[in-house]
């Protein structure tokens, strides 16, 4: 068999295989009258290795054999293939988080009471995995249910120094939507007397709208 053909078969095998292939495995591709020598295999592997120069993949030897892999410097582009587009959080998650935020410490049962529906375990897990919420204690009632509260990471994520910076309850009640009148020029320093003052809202909402605190924008390779 021509060396060129051997090389082509080895290349295709390595590209097709999910696992690295050892020299033995490569030899076994050729048997009977096709049998190839170790030297031929080495020659082919060397040729294939150099053929990768300047490409996005490379042929490397790892513990269990040879494999093609994406070069580290190409990986940033390739990794976009596997990235899942971030989806929005569900309404249920938002409401659960909102309740934990404003009513902390709160038990799951209490959240369920307010929302009228069961709080799903995946939601709690997501909130905990994101480290926005954690168990801060247990209520001294039968069953000793866990009490949840928000975390430092939660405050960091939303660019808050403390929970006090959240729009207060009373003002939220008033909100019909986040309207332009809540924007900065109508500052708290000069509140209209006929309207109840919204001390925290204008500033914080402004921050919120214009500077959505970190969305996940850093993932792109430059």
């Amino acid at each position, binding site marked *: 068999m021509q060396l060129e053909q051997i090389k082509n078969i080895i290349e295709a095998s390595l590209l097709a295989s999910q696992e690295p292939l050892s020299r033995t495995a490569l030899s076994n591709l050729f048997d009977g009258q096709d049998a190839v020598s170790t030297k031929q295999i080495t020659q082919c592997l060397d040729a294939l290795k150099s053929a990768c120069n300047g490409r996005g993949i490379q042929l490397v030897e790892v513990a269990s054999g040879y494999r*093609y892999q994406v070069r580290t410097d190409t990986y940033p582009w390739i*990794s976009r293939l596997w990235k899942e587009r971030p989806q929005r959080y569900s309404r249920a998650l938002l409401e659960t988080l*909102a309740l934990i935020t404003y009513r902390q410490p709160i038990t799951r049962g209490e959240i369920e009471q*307010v929302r009228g529906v069961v709080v799903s375990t995946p939601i709690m897990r997501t909130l905990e995995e994101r480290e926005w919420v954690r168990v801060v204690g247990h209520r001294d009632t039968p069953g000793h249910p866990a009490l949840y509260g928000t975390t430092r990471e939660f405050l960091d994520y939303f660019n808050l120094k403390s929970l006090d910076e959240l729009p207060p309850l009373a003002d939220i009640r008033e909100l019909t939507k986040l309207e332009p009148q809540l924007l900065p020029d109508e500052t708290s320093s000069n509140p209209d007397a006929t309207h109840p003052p919204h001390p925290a809202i204008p500033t914080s909402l402004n921050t919120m709208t214009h500077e959505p605190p970190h969305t996940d924008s850093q993932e792109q390779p430059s």
Partner: protein
Amino acid sequence: MSTAPVEIGPTMPVDIFGSTPQQQEMPLARVRGESVLSIPQDLYIPPDALEVILEVFEGPLDLLLYLIRRQNLNILDIPIAAITQQYMKYIEIMHEIKLELAAEYLVMAAILAEIKSRLLLPRPLNTEVAEEDPRAELIRRLQEYEQFKLAAENIGALPRVERDTWVTHVAADSQKVIRLPPAMDLQELVLAFKDILKKVDLRAPHAIQRDTLSVRQRMGEVLKTLEDGAFHPFANLFTPDEGRLGVVVTFAAMLELAKDRLIEIVQERPFSPIYLKSSTTDGNV
């Protein structure tokens, strides 16, 4: 009249039964009852060979097609009598060797018998033009079936992954999906909370402390509105003109009423509109 077997070259893959002259001396048609059991040994039939017969034919149309093609007969001019005879023979054997015979094979036998009998009837001379060949429908079905039989072969011959080719898999540093958590901004969170407040009161103490309007009085007004026993949209019970306190008081009143089980608060599913209804008038309506 020839009774000689049609020789089909051994190279013809179509002739799955690859007959040879000696073998034809032994007519399997005579094979019945117990004698069937001896055949497999004589012919070195592998244990599952009989099942193969059925697998070979994808149904009565396929079997018929086989009988026709193997004898080089024109599909448009099937000799029904002969084909029926042969078809029945296969059925018989399948039956004898207790192959689970699909009902369709028997249905086809009946169809063949019917066509045969119609062909045997003398045709009235005057209607010769209008008379349709009783075989027409069968021929149409055979042709259609053969069309798809060939199409299936074509599809089967297409180069396919896993059999003729393989897709490449090159390792990448970490091929697991990078699952980015969704972004969230505070505005969303606040709005979510506002929605909760719309649904259920959180009994914020400061809201009630300052009430200048009597919650009790408002409870009565709400009950009056609900007097008709109908469901009222939650939102309609508020009078925005009263301002924030008025709204809070109304809400507090509703909660008190609900606590006393004087009203029902209904929501069909999460986030759907909330309705209120008087419980007391329920029985009267």
